[in-house]
């Protein structure tokens, strides 16, 4: 029927609103069309980031020819319609509806948390509703005081559903629902039991009234009395933009606006983790030999001892362990101090345990380290592959993006992790592989893709390497049947726009090299790194691991990944002699201490006793040091051994920039002054530089000056910041290299001889060990546990809450039992957040 071809579907609609014409895309709502004209239609329940609701009925407008008012927020436009947004009839309808909203609404504004920032107040005021023609019997509903971190007063609720929708559509938790009927309809948990959820508090952020409120914030002050400072979250690697609300030098609340990169969505750490800043356990005075000391004495002790050691043994007798938590500028200054002033390249960090070597592989294969596109691109993926990560545990921002892709872009989702994660329900294929078999699993996916016809540069050599691996063997290693691997591989290519996300399971895999290579191959084979692809994203649990490495906090590279051949450029710029040979890495440093070659260790924002695999060995080494300097916020295990403790500042107490794992560089300014006598790391380091530098002391630089120096020397960034105080700061330069698959040769799985295999990974209610200093996080995730499958629990003879002793090659721990079918039989799960991350590999259990 040829004549139908001329009737192409129109993609735009032109309509008239209040006498003015506007053309908008088909599918736009009347509300959006009006906004194009600058006409503001009042709304209460509308929220851009979730599906439309149409609950409040405030946005009613008249459409000519339609014999009722239509709600602007959820009525799509139609070509040729005429809309009126204001008329006496419309205003009367809005006013009456608002009067109904106020029937029995408690006017307890004096003690309501929302007072002063209440959308209901604002809209009632704007509509001049000062009396009520309606009345009904008063029936007060019970207030949920028994929830943790949140409180719900259903009497204040206007049933806008924003909280329910954010929880379901954005967070993917579905913890709260609309329950009951009629005027008793409230927001509650479906079971009626106290809230047991992610505790991300996004519901609080979207609540237009004082129904859902933050308990830690309650009675901390009226909203308008706080200083609000835009900043960047200091916890995970998603790089969310936040606002610190502070008064009297304390952060009392964290919120996030709808216009931020993350659209106002945070996780428990972003929302409640600030309690760590205010922790009574925080140390805010310098300590020398465990005793309070002034800054002058502390710095003089550090500088003096360092100089003595360097004079006697050379710079190589000093090493440093940097921090994935501090700003780029501080990381830069840390390595500058050690390289330039002390004269050592023995600088490393916990990234040695996986992230750095994994990124070297990714860099060699793709010419990029970190995420190859920015995180929000994932929303537009048609296939999302998540390997070796519980997204909400590692970097919740990525979980939210995966959920958007799945629910709002019909993306197919493939997940692979030994433990069933809370986002498993989105997976079209969930591969619950045996821990340790990561390289085999990705090899299986690579093989299935190639056999299904996928190809990329280098896939021929990859194919020959995979020909040697049979699916029988892959299944034996991973526990995943061949058909399931093939199905997952097919889903991984669905729609042609794939995103590949890989986490600690891959990055800290026993066979990391093949696991990471296989993930990059997967990205190449699915086209994730190609033109229509959505990119490949490594995850890290901490906020600035990527930035720390960019700044050269590692022994093999100078800042900007410059090789030691460029050492003179840095030496000249710093007016120092920087040693030209690569330094020792983390393991080399411990070795060096044991051998007596290294006599001083400078640890900044890091707790090696918590993250190093062999705690006993590290403990003995640290005790051997002539000088252990720890610069931190809290009395960590390592800090307790320090000869000198230098109290540092939190992210709220300083300015600088963080680089998220997807390479977004975001600047932020200081919200509050450092607590007590604490100083920010940059200031401490610059002062020490002046005290130690053998040649030419440098003056304390301003941050702008420092930015320019970093940019000039590293050549990582575009020269200028977009504008002062912005959070989308400098853009990282990127050089794409010709990318090619590499062969895979997964190592033979070695029989452990032990009954259990261990998974140790971060959980959703904490971030690293940082938030274990936060009373709010601890309230809902108080501590360590060991998760075990019900059948294993029965075999071992333990029940919920019993203490068990887990013995591995690297030590043993006694932990309380949690029984859960989230782990497969034969697998144990232990959260890595509580200092148990040292456990790995295989183990055995005994009732304690």
């Amino acid at each position, binding site marked *: 029927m040829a004549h139908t071809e001329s009737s192409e579907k129109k993609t735009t609609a032109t309509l008239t609103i209040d006498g003015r014409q506007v053309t908008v895309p088909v599918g736009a709502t009347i509300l959006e069309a009006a906004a194009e004209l600058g006409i503001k239609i009042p709304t209460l329940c509308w929220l851009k980031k979730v599906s439309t*609701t149409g609950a409040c009925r405030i946005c009613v407008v008249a459409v000519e020819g339609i014999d009722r008012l239509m709600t602007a927020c959820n009525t*799509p436009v139609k070509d040729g319609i005429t809309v009126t947004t204001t008329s006496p009839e419309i205003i009367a309808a809005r006013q009456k509806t608002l009067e*109904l909203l106020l*029937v029995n609404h408690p006017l307890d504004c004096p003690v309501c948390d929302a007072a002063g920032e209440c959308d209901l107040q604002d809209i009632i005021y704007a509509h001049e509703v000062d009396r009520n023609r309606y*009345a009904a019997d008063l029936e007060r509903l019970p207030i949920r005081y028994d929830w943790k971190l949140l409180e719900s007063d259903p009497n204040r609720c206007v049933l806008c559903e924003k909280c329910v929708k954010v929880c379901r559509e954005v967070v993917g938790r579905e913890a709260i629902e609309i329950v009951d009927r*009629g005027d008793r309809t409230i927001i509650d948990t479906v079971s009626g039991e106290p809230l047991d959820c992610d505790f991300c508090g996004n519901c609080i952020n979207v609540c237009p009234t004082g129904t859902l409120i933050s308990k830690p914030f309650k009675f901390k002050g009226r909203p308008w009395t706080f200083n609000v400072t835009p900043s960047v979250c200091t916890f995970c690697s998603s790089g969310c933009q936040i606002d610190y609300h502070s008064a009297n030098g304390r952060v009392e609340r964290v919120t996030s606006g709808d216009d931020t990169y993350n659209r106002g969505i945070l996780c428990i750490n972003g929302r409640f983790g600030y309690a760590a800043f205010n922790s009574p356990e925080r140390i805010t005075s310098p300590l020398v030999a465990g005793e309070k000391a002034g800054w002058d004495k502390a710095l003089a002790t550090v500088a003096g001892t360092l100089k003595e050691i360097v004079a006697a043994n050379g710079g190589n007798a000093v090493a440093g362990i940097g921090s994935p938590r501090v700003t780029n500028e501080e990381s830069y200054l840390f390595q500058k101090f050690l390289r330039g002033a002390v004269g050592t390249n023995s600088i490393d960090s916990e990234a040695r345990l996986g992230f750095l070597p994994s990124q070297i592989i990714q860099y060699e294969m793709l010419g990029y380290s970190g995420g190859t596109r920015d995180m929000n691109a994932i929303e537009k993926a048609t296939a999302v592959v998540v390997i070796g990560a519980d997204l909400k545990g590692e970097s919740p921002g990525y979980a939210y993006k995966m959920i958007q892709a799945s629910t709002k872009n019909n993306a197919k989702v493939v997940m692979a992790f030994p433990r069933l994660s809370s986002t498993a*329900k989105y997976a079209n294929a969930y591969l619950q592989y045996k821990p340790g078999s990561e390289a085999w699993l990705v090899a299986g996916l690579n093989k299935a893709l190639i056999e299904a016809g996928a190809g990329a540069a280098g896939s021929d050599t990859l194919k020959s390497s995979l020909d040697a691996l049979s699916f029988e063997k892959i299944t034996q290693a991973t526990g995943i049947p061949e058909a399931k691997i093939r199905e997952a591989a097919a889903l991984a290519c669905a729609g042609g726009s794939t995103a590949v996300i890989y986490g600690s399971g891959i990055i800290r895999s026993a066979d990391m090299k093949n696991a990471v290579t296989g993930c990059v191959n997967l990205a190449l084979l699915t086209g994730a790194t190609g033109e229509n692809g959505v990119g490949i994203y490594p995850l890290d649990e901490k906020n600035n691991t990527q930035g720390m490495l960019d700044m050269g906090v590692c022994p093999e590279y100078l800042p900007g990944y410059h090789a030691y051949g460029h050492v003179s450029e840095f030496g000249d710029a710093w007016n120092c002699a920087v040693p030209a040979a690569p330094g020792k890495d983390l393991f080399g440093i411990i070795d060096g201490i044991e051998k007596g070659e290294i006599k001083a260790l400078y640890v900044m924002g890091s707790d090696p006793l918590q993250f190093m695999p062999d705690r006993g060995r590290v403990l003995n080494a640290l005790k051997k040091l002539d000088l252990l300097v720890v610069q931190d916020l809290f009395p960590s295990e390592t800090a307790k051994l320090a000869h000198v403790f230098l109290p540092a500042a939190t992210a709220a107490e300083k300015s600088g920039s963080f680089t998220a794992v997807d390479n977004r560089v975001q600047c932020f300014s200081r919200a509050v002054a450092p607590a007590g006598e604490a100083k920010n790391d940059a200031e401490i380091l610059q002062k020490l530089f002046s005290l130690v530098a053998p040649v030419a002391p440098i003056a304390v630089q301003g941050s702008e000056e420092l930015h320019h120096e970093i940019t000039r020397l590293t050549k990582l960034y575009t020269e200028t910041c977009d504008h002062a105080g912005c959070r989308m700061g400098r853009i990282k330069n990127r050089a794409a290299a010709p990318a090619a698959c590499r062969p895979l040769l997964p190592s033979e799985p070695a029989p452990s001889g032990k009954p259990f295999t261990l998974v140790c990974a971060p959980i959703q209610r904490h971030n690293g060990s940082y938030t274990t200093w936060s009373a709010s996080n601890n309230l809902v995730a108080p501590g360590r546990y060991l998760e075990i499958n019900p059948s294993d629990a029965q075999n071992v003879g333990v029940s919920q809450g019993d203490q068990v002793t887990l013995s591995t090659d690297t030590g043993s721990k006694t932990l309380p039992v949690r029984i859960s079918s989230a782990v497969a039989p034969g697998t144990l799960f232990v959260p890595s957040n509580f200092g148990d991350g040292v456990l790995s590999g295989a183990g055995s259990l005994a009732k304690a």
Partner: protein
Amino acid sequence: MAQVVFSTWGRNIVDNRNAAGEPAAASFKLPVAFDGEQPLKAFMGWDGIILFDKYVDIPAMTAEYMRRVQTLYCCGRCTPGKKGTKVLSDLFQNVLDGKAKESDLDTVGDLAELLKNCKCTLCQSATVPVFDAVAHYRSDFLAYITSSCGPNREPSRFIHKITAPCMDRCPSHIDIPKYVEEIKNYQYGEALATIRDNMPLPSVCGRVCPHPCETACRRKNVDDAINIMVLKRTASDYEWMHNLQPPMQPKPKKGKTVGIVGAGPAGLAAAYYLALEGYHCTIYEALPEGFGGGMIAVGIPAYRMPRHLLQRDIDIIQAVGVDIVYNCRVGKDISLPELKQKHDAVFLAPGAHRSKPMGVEGEDKGYKGFLSGGIDFLREAYMGRPTGMGKKVCVVGGGNTAIDCVRVALREGAEESILLYRRSRKEMPADVWEVDGADEEGVKFEFQVLPTKIVVDANDQVTGVECVRMAMGEPDASGRRRPEPVPGSEFIVECDTVIPAIGQDPDLKFIPADMGIDITKWNTVVTKYLPHKDAAGKQLNDSMGNPLCRTLITDCDGVFAGGDAEIGPLTVVACVGNAHRAARVIQRWLEEGKAYLTEEDILEDLLTYLGVYDKNEKVPWLDSADRSNQKEVHGRERAAKGNYNEVELGFSDTTAQAEADRCLRCYRMAMVAV
């Protein structure tokens, strides 16, 4: 009796309260007695009030109606509905308590107007009868207000039912607005749970249901119906595509067991709902394992209903506590009396699998190439057995089975597949999309032809069908024109295979004559029913011509019947609805020793009889969101030999969500006074 005292139903006012002489005539599709015995005194609903008994206390009924709407059904999800019905409910209670002022009655009209802005129609439509009551019975309200003792009327008992045009029209009475809204809210699991409350074969009815609900969709009065069926498929496919475990947990086992004849839609549905209640069910199925599903399996080809998904639905039903004994034909491998002895109750759902004869010359001669019937052909093809089909196939009939046969014939390798039907294309009982599908696949049609004789060669091999062309005759006494043969138009359609597909009826030979189970002249099982009569004394029947309210128990105690064998050959959705009711009645029988319908069951049937959808209703709404239709595989290759891949592809989740957003959520509440 049944004289209408007063009515505003359908917005027509009939007022016989003070009529001198002949009262105004008014009739509604309602029985004189609610359950055949208790007089129906008044009816209140979305379209007004109907009063048969002048002693009914209208203010009390109004207050009760609004109280039930507010406290039982108002979803609270829009301001006018949540708060407006609360204000109204309390206002009417204040009237009854003598605490109201006359001016309060003005609020009723004011809110009736404001509640037009409600999100859906429940609260809004609830203002219609209460507004009518205040407008026309103001003095009764004032009597309460001024004297605080009311107008001295008789107390009544009230029975209510929530409904919607679509859920009323759906024979399984699925809560369609609820699951559509759940899809709109991305709650696929909840949507599927809602569907399963009344439909345990969601992947089936999400694909092959003739969706009568969509003919009663109020959105049709704006533009086009909501694509209700494909949304059901969406919910069902979501669970499957995300490897989610169905959440149903059966109640603890109650000891008694139920034996069921036939693993078709009715047998499976009854088993599912009884098993959930804790009654272990055993289904006896004549076909071998892997071929469960009754007419769905043998009658609906795999390109419409993928087998692995049908089997998934059956597996899920079995998982709640249902055994299926395959290869067991009741009447042959086990007798019905044995079955009755073995179980505490028996449910007969054997279906309608016997092909009807065509009535043409030669059909009973055993010719080679003349197949026994469409359903037999489909079954043999599905089971991978020889069908006896040649290369050039003629199928006679105009229903869905006939269409399935011509389409399957292509997939079985027929070079030519021809459909012969005695009326025109638009008169075919087959679903339009099925006919179009056959057309696209290259089926040839001969409309308005009547086969008269099977033509064979010397070896009794079919070589063609002799047909005569039909034309519309002169109108008969009733004014209706019937097709008549055109003299001299005889011609032969060449073919080597003829498949008659003109209908099926139940094969009830397995029921021994001495069990006291009655069988109708249409060869269906007789079940007990309520003696509903209209004002003229005529028995009320449903749209199939069966008595309106049936308990589905046969004249033999403990033996119940349902599905095609009780209704007459119909649809999956009708069989499921009928079997679900049977399951409830069986449960009552097992627990209380009585097989009866609840008042809610009865009101459900009465509403269906009354009609909930009004195609003439003006629905003010902006028609700015078009109906979405699912994508399908096009081209003749889809019907290539051996290609049974699914033709229709369902919705993407986001298309489903947008389609669901078109729903007007047309809930409404009916309440009767008895």
